[in-house]
């Protein structure tokens, strides 16, 4: 085996490498999100304007990333991962000095969170690592991949940004699952954890148990985290089948609902657009994820398959955790609703991810030197 063979690509859709079904689903979600945000911001036009500017930038990033062929991503992966890791460490050290926010890195012109890079870099690195290992995972490669995933995860969790850390870990674990960890191991791990839970419970301190109780029964802590959930459930439930109408949500506009432009924006949409509107939102998110998985299924290399599938999953799981939290079935973890919540960083990350997915779908290998020589 010599150096990487140079693949030859067939250009689809001429010079534009876009997956149109995916793009139209994304745009529908984004536009629907814009309506909700306009209401959630109490019709503060400047907020909508700022979000539109971020969106334009993020869409531009997506377009640029669609143009880059997948083998380039593979080539750059170790570099992106290493730089991301260094930035995470830099943030940790600078945060220590400044004693302030430890998530942001100020680059003068703009600030960004290195943990966002890791949402892409960790699945890329894991996919890169498993690219050549097409057989079932061995214990040693499992160990290496766990290191790849959990070093950045722990750094992010320490910031502390538990929500992002969870997502980064999930995307990496998704790669391991696809790369072929024995299902037996997966199932035995699950059963081991569920068996160990009662024992762990027994050894926990009272205050730790109390915290878990609060997670399960927010009503018991109406002055703390429970307040958000109670209010958010009232907002969603009172929306009914058809909703109260756009800009008519009383809960959201009377400031009963906390964080209604960011983490709890789904509740604003649910109150105003009802079951029909919320279901549409969930369906859109699921369709986007399924389309991305379909692209993964048709991808031509191990690397691109693993990468596009795990990016699809990180998108879906982010949305699931956010909506689950807002509806009171998951604990309150600070994760925004992808492509809908107010804020730029997550928007750029996810659209970049979709850019990579579209690049994978549109750059198809026409002719492979190595394979050809083997065949003939």
């Amino acid at each position, binding site marked *: 085996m010599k150096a990487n063979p140079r693949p030859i690509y067939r250009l689809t859709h001429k010079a534009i490498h876009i997956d149109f079904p995916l793009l139209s689903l994304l745009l529908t979600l984004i536009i629907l999100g814009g309506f909700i945000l306009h209401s959630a911001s109490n019709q503060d036009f400047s907020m909508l304007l700022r979000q539109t500017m971020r969106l334009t930038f993020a869409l531009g990033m997506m377009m640029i990333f669609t143009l880059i062929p997948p083998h380039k991503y593979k080539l750059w992966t170790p570099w992106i991962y290493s730089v991301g890791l260094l930035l995470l460490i830099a943030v940790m050290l600078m945060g220590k000095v400044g004693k302030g926010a430890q998530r942001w890195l100020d680059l003068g012109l703009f600030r960004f969170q290195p943990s966002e890079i890791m949402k892409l870099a960790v699945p890329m690195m894991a996919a890169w690592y498993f690219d050549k290992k097409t057989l079932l995972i061995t214990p040693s490669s499992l160990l290496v991949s766990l290191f790849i995933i959990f070093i950045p995860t722990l750094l992010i969790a320490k910031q502390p940004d538990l929500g992002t850390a969870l997502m980064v870990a999930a995307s990496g674990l*998704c790669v391991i699952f696809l790369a072929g960890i024995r299902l037996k191991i997966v199932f035995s791990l699950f059963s081991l954890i569920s068996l160990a839970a009662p024992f762990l419970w027994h050894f926990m301190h009272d205050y730790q148990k109390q915290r878990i109780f609060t997670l399960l029964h927010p009503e018991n802590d109406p002055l703390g985290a429970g307040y958000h959930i109670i209010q958010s*459930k009232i907002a969603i439930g009172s929306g009914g089948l058809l909703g109260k109408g756009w800009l008519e949500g*009383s809960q959201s506009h*009377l400031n009963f609902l906390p964080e209604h432009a960011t983490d709890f924006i789904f509740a604003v949409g649910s109150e105003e657009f009802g079951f029909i509107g919320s279901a549409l939102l969930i369906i859109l998110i*699921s369709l986007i994820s*399924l389309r991305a998985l379909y692209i993964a299924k048709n991808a031509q290399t191990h690397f691109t398959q693993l990468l596009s599938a795990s990016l699809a*999953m990180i998108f879906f799981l982010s949305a699931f955790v956010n909506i689950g939290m807002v509806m009171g079935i998951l604990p309150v973890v600070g994760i925004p609703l992808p492509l809908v919540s107010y804020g730029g960083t997550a928007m750029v990350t996810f659209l970049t991810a979709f850019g990579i997915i579209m690049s994978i779908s549109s750059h198809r290998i026409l002719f492979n030197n190595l394979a050809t020589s083997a065949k003939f």
Partner: protein
Amino acid sequence: MHFNRSMKTQRKQPKIKIRLHLLSVLIFALFSILLLRLAYLQIFQFKRYHTLSLHNQMNIIPIPPPRGIILDRNGVVLAENIPVYSLEITPEHIKNLPSTLKKLKTLLPSISEEDINHFNHVRKQNRPFVPIPLKLKLNQEEVAVFASRQHQFPGVNIRARLMRYYPFRETMAHILGYVGRINLQELKQINPSNYRATNFIGKAGIERFYERILHGKIGYQQVEIDASGRTLRVLNKQNPLSGERLYLTIDSRLQRAAYEALKDKRGAIVIINPQNGEILAMVSSPSYDPNQFVNGITFKEYQKLATARERPLFNRAVRGLYPPASTIKPFMGLAGLEKGVIDAKYSIYDPGWFRLPGISHAYRDWKKTGHGVLNLKRAITVSCDTYFYQLGSKMGIAAIEDVLMRFGFGQLSHVDIQEEAAGILPNKQWKKQMKGSSWYPGDTVITSIGQGFMLASPLQLANATSALSQKGKRFRPHFLQKSVQNDREKIHVYKILEEYPMHLKNDSYWDIITESMRAVITSNEGTGYRFGRTAPYTVAAKTGTAQVVGGFHYEKIPYEEIPEFLRDNSLFIAFAPTEAPEVSIAVVVENDFAASNIARKVLDSYFKLKETTNS
């Protein structure tokens, strides 16, 4: 294209496709969960949430828990919550506001123009149903005057808020500490939802150490409010759980006597019951009025307290570190006996100085002419320096440290206030680390009379004296006796922690030391003459005089002419009665010789109080 596909299948493991399908199934499953939950909330539970949102709407009003009060061992209140009255007006209920204000001003002349202006200013920023204070801190008379006319003023009310109050003021400040507004740093250490309605937090002393049990648990009211925010009715109420009532080991009468005895001097007194470690009184003088801090001290006042040369904010009893001087001698004597360097009969001749072999420097006794022949008992009685110079340099610093350590010198006593300092019990490593030089035999010599590097707090001295009186049995000194949870009548009695006891090779050593300390008071040449040769109770004691400036030759200058801050510190430790010790005391007075006199006053009041309590 066809060609391509065949290439692909060869290169790939087919199982990844199965797993991708599994992920699709997972997405579908999670999607269904969300949809079902959504349907449950929006369709099946719609009526419930619709009603809740219509009534609109619930608001949660936190109710602060009353802070636990603090009492002394006899139930005398040391810290309480007193109501402070303010006059409030609800603008919505007033027909003619200007005339009401005018009438109020004639009724209560203390209402100033400024109050009215401020009221009007705040009123414009709030909704009309919100009560707004017109005058804060009404006095009792004003409250009575208004209460009798209240019927003429619908919409005007008196509201009481609770404020921390320390009736003993300066007397208890260094024990109780005080509460003050919560600062940013403290905010990080507390559970914000429990402190939602609380403005004050313990800043020092008992108030700080027992903050967790003093604070209590917040309550709340779930109220229904309409769209404008007006409260319609109370849906649900959870009463706050008030903080625990603390009973301290302090006897406020003894505390007051000790405070009076030390008044106008700088120093500290600690009185402990050696049989269980209960601190009966602890004074640091000068002191401050903790109530100033509760009401919000002005920057100027605080500056004055913080920079005053007498340092009233400094807790000398637990943080003040002093050379123990001659009060260390009984412990040194005990160390000598224990290490087998001397026995009770061993005597030396004291010419008035001591010289280390091969070194010309002479370490002088406080008595220039020397004490002549003396054994251990007489050496303690007359507080002979030469005897202990010699004893110490024979024993060596390691042996000294070994025994003194067991009395708690150089270590935190873990008393239940946070301000404590550990003091210094020097050894070779300590000097190397802190001073960067090696230990000289001369260092051992001066350590033997409690000078040099050695430093101890008055609390440590009282603590060590207690251990001496109990023949090695030690207890952790403490302030908290028991606490009572008001709402549940649950009583927590705090455990008395016994420290690892000391066992000497021969129990008679204890008696030798006690006897010598007894002679300090009773013997004609004992140094305890200022205490008085006779007392209605038996006392074992030791005096101490610590030079503030080394090498100052006092004999040459009349005492009155020495600048005050250069005068010696005086120390006094004692326990009584010697047959069955039940009280031990340590007194340190800065730049004054009064320690023995003060100790006498305080011990007298202890026994007098005991008599009145018993009869």
